[in-house]
Structure formats: C-alpha cells, structure tokens
C-alpha cells in the first residue's frame, strides 16, 4: 500500500467514529429540543456540557477521588497478583492450599462484601480501595498463573540443560512468557477496578468532602439534577476510556516486537 493511501485509511479510521459520535450527539440534541423534553427527565447535550462547566468545582475533586481509588487498587492488584502468582507456581502444595480461598473470594459478589468491609476498615476510603482491589486482582492473578504455567516444555528443558537457577528460569523465561497473559488480565482488571470503585461507593453511600463521583451521581439523582448526573456519568465514561486506552497502549508497547496479537497479519 502506498503511504498516501495508508494516510487516507488512517484518516478514515479516525473520522468515521468521530462523525458517528457527532451525529449521535446531534440526534440527542434534536430529540430533546424538538420534543421539548424537560431537563429533569432528559437533559440535552448542551445542558450536560453546561453542568460539566458550572459544577466542575464539585465534580473535579470527586473525579480525583474515584481515579485515585481506581489506580491505587489497580496498582495493588498488579503487585499482589504478581507475588501470589509466582508463589502459586513454585509449588503444588502452595497452590492446593490457597486455591479454595482464591475461588471463594472470586465468586463472592463484591457488593455483598462491601458492608462488611465498611465495618472492619478504619475508613470508607480504605473499604472502597479494598473492594476495587479484590475485583481487579483476580483476573490479573488468573491470567498470570495461566501464563506462568503455559511455558513451552522445550524451553524449560533448555533452561534445565543450561543449568539455569529457579530465579533465572522465572525472570528470563516464565515471566516474559506470561506477559501476553498478564496484559490480557490487566485490560480486564483495569476496567473492573473502576466499576468496583463505583459500585462499592454506591454500597457505602458516603457523603462529604472525601466522596467520589459515584456519590455525586447518587446525590444528583436525589435532587433531580439530571444535567449534573449526566455530567458525572460522562466523566466516569471518559475515565474508563482512558484506562482502557492506557492498558491497551502498555500492552502494545510491551508486545509489539514479538507477539502475534500485536502484529498485523501479512497479506
């Protein structure tokens, strides 16, 4: 393909989704204005933009709180999953002993645990962090364990033959081989961390200065302040998109040189 044609294709692949999004917003605007739908039922896009602007002093600190909880939970989940996954694949005994706990924690709905966590943790923030952590943790752990275990047997033979130590095998073989699996877990876990941070805050129902976007969203609903509710929703969506884009970018950068998932199929 010529460079000019490739550029044209890139342009099209950016313009088409943007145009669709624009059309959608325009349709929304027309729907609201032509039918004269009241703001407290469905605000138009201009109302939402206005709320975003005027309520920014309320929404922005809340956004920061939610983002902080989400990323802290994701960071803890990555570290925790790495440590536990490495432990689990070291010995069959450790795996057998810890497996039931992993399953129980994974299948229990986090909303059901949230009230308990609220009792046992020193502050609501810690409870929210724990909830988001628990939810983000398992997809990353499960993928990592799978990845650490599915190493090519020939390569394991090679490392044994070269007299590689356990640590050398871990760092030079198992962890790199698990990287594509880890990245898949990270993309899932990143999205789930945000969802869990929001759901846990719904369950906790905190108020006041330290509250996140989920609380602002509920509060706006109680007050029938629909534009602000939508504005909070837009911010949450954008946060999710940013998290998805970041994890996808990290995954692409880490794998682009060698993994099939990151490479275009030659045609």
């Amino acid at each position, binding site marked *: 393909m010529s460079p000019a044609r490739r550029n044209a294709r890139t342009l099209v692949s950016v313009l088409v989704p943007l145009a669709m999004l624009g059309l959608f917003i325009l349709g929304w605007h027309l729907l609201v204005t032509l039918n004269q739908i009241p703001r407290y039922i469905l605000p138009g896009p201009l109302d939402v933009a206005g709320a975003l602007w005027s309520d920014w002093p309320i929404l922005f600190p809340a956004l920061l709180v939610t983002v902080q909880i989400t990323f802290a939970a994701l960071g803890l989940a990555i570290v925790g999953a790495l440590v536990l996954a490495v432990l689990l694949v070291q010995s069959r005994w450790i795996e057998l002993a810890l497996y039931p706990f992993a399953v129980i924690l994974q299948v229990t709905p986090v909303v059901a645990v949230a009230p308990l966590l609220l009792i046992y943790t020193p502050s609501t923030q810690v409870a929210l962090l724990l909830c988001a952590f628990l939810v983000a943790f398992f997809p990353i752990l499960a993928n990592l364990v799978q990845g650490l275990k599915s190493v090519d047997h020939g*390569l394991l*033979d090679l490392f044994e033959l*070269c*007299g590689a130590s356990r640590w050398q095998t871990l760092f030079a073989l198992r962890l790199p081989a698990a990287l594509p699996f880890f990245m898949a877990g990270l993309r899932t876990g990143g999205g789930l961390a945000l969802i869990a941070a929001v759901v846990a805050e719904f369950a906790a129902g905190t108020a006041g200065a330290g509250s996140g976007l989920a609380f602002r969203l509920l509060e706006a609903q109680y007050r029938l302040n629909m534009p602000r509710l939508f504005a909070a929703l837009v911010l949450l969506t954008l946060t999710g998109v940013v998290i998805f884009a970041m994890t996808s970018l990290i995954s692409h950068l880490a794998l682009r040189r060698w993994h099939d998932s990151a*490479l275009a199929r030659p045609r």
Partner: protein
Amino acid sequence: MTAPASPAPLVALDAVSKRFPNGTQALAGMALDLRQGEFLTLLGPSGCGKSTVLRLVAGLAEPTQGRVLRPQPRQPGQIGFVFQDATLLPWRTVLGNVALPLRLAGVERTEARERARQSLAPLGLDAFARAYPRELSGGMKMRVAIARALVTRPRLLLMDEPFAALDEITRQRLNDEVLALWQAAGLTVLFVTHSVFEAAYLSSRVVVMTPRPGRAFADIALDQPPRRDEAYRLSEPYRARSAQLSAALHAAMAEGER
C-alpha cells in the same frame, strides 16, 4: 567393519529401561556407546524411544533401570541440545537467543554477545543478529537453534530430529552445514532421525532401533568419504548405504512385531 581401538566412550547406556509414569515402556534393555569424535545416528520408527535416549544422555530424564554414563563432570555447556522445534525465545533477538546459554552460565553481557556473534557466522546468520524469531523462516530458526547449542563450545551435540519439519532443499543444506560444523569443531554428535537417507548421508555410525519398547537392533559403521556433496547423493556407495540401512530398519520393524 570393526571399530578401531578407541578411548573410553563419552556416553554409554548399559541395559537401560525407561518406563514413564503413565505406564508407557519407552526403552527396554537399550545399550549404546558413543566415542569421542563420532557422528552417531539413532535410526528408528516414530515412537521407538529415540528421543528418550537423548533426554537420558542430556540428563533431562533418569532411567528406570540400568546405567547411563554421561560426560563428567556434568557442567552446563558440556552438552548442546537441538530440539525438534527451534524452541527460541520469541521476545529475544537472534543474538539474544544465541547468547542465552552463556548468560545463564553467568557470562557477562558484552562478552556473551561477542561470543554469540562469533557463533552466528558459520551458519550465515550475521545479517539476522537483530531479527526476531517470528521474522525468520523455519530453516533460519533451526540455524539459530544450532548456533545456540554450539555457543558454549560443547563436547557433545545432541540433535532430536531437527530437520523433520523442513522442506527437502533446506534439509539438505542444513545437513551439509551440520557436517561441516562436526568436521571443523571436532564435535561428537548424537543425531536422531527416522529418515534412512539422512542417516546414510550424515553418520559415521548408525544404531537402528526396534519399535517400542526400543532397544538397539543393529549397529552399522559407515565408512564415509570426508567430502560429501550433491554428487555423493547420486553415487553408488551412498545408494548402497541407504539400502543397507533400509534393510536393517525393516528387519528391526519385523523384530518388533514378533
């Protein structure tokens, strides 16, 4: 033909049996001795335990019964192993893959890379040092695997049907390259194949194995010309050796079915 008086064997299997945990009897009463400087080929049908012999020699498996004598002391780097697949690390470049055994043995990075580079040259891999495995053809991947096996300058090279998955032309070229490496480096090679023609072309000695459970059925020394090329593949002596090995293989198969 009788073997000339020679030093103590480098590798010896004495009445070795191997049964896997799933109950498969891979080897029963297998005997083998491999002397310094030989190119010995294990020839047998698929599933006759040829690969198991290599794994026993490499120390990747232990015999259920019998004794295995390996190069002593068994240090890393004494034995080079070329697997059926190239088994390269996809996230490392060609140079990184070839340097791997040295790095695992604790050789410092720049020195390991320098020595890896030297090991690329004989296999015509110089231009591909920075390529990733997925950018290479099957034959080139196998060359990288051979370069990696030789980078520690082992005394013994084990090759487990390395060219089975390659096309005929690539296979013949790699046969020539392996022969050249064997002759130049004074290596001892233990080669596994199910191809009569490959065995007849490469080997100084061929041990024909029976089907599972495998054991040595015939031990045939081949008096080979030092220079082998395209013309040799069409020559009468080569045809005669192939016929001899083929007859031995068929007799081994018949023996296994009795």
